[in-house]
């Protein structure tokens, strides 16, 4: 199982992900004769407190996505009433020099991270396919995928 061991930064366990359109959307674009938008690299905090993966709405703008779902979301400020957010399907790649891992269809929620030092949260939906070790004493973390 390929893995990355990286330093825990002042922002926490942050990993760079390559984010592009989903496999299914890529096929639809190809049939329509439209170009595939270039993938983008996003700095995402590994967050075991996030049910699902959330990405910055501004950062994913160049992918030209359309919503394909909705989900209720609860944050510390929503109180008991969840906020309904649109979800978008993307493809996410963990880059590894020898063996990158591509998740071809990941539903993500677009949120505003403009005031944050990160571009998104890597949630438990993707982490369900990974092994994540946080070594606080060594100030490193490892993620295998």
């Amino acid at each position, binding site marked *: 199982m390929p893995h990355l061991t990286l330093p825990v930064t002042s922002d926490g366990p942050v990993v760079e992900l390559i984010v592009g359109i989903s496999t299914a959307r890529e096929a639809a674009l190809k049939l329509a004769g439209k170009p595939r938008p270039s993938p983008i690299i996003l700095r995402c905090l590994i967050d075991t407190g996030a049910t699902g993966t959330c990405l910055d709405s501004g950062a994913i703008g160049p992918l030209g996505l359309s919503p394909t779902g909705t989900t209720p979301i609860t944050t510390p400020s929503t109180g008991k009433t969840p906020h309904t957010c649109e979800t978008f399907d993307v493809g996410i790649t963990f880059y590894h020099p020898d063996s990158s891992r591509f998740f071809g269809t990941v539903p993500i929620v*677009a949120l505003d991270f403009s005031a944050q030092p990160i571009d998104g949260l890597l949630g438990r939906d993707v982490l369900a396919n990974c092994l994540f070790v946080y070594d606080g004493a060594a100030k490193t973390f490892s993620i295998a995928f």
Partner: protein
Amino acid sequence: MADALETELKTYEAQKKSLLAQEGKFVVIHGTEILGTYASYEDALKAGYEKYKLEPFLVKKIQAVDAVNFVTRDLPFSCPT
């Protein structure tokens, strides 16, 4: 709110009672039309794109009560659409 899929969400709510017979599956809806139900999100999304191309469509897990996504970090809500 999810205005872009408003019609599809209304269709889901209108058909929810009968769809619940297939709870746990994923339904694909375009406007007021239900394309079908699928065992996985991936299969539903693929069917949606194959049928409706780049037109809007909804993929929704059939559940009596929608599962809530929890985010422990407080973030403003915004969507790119």
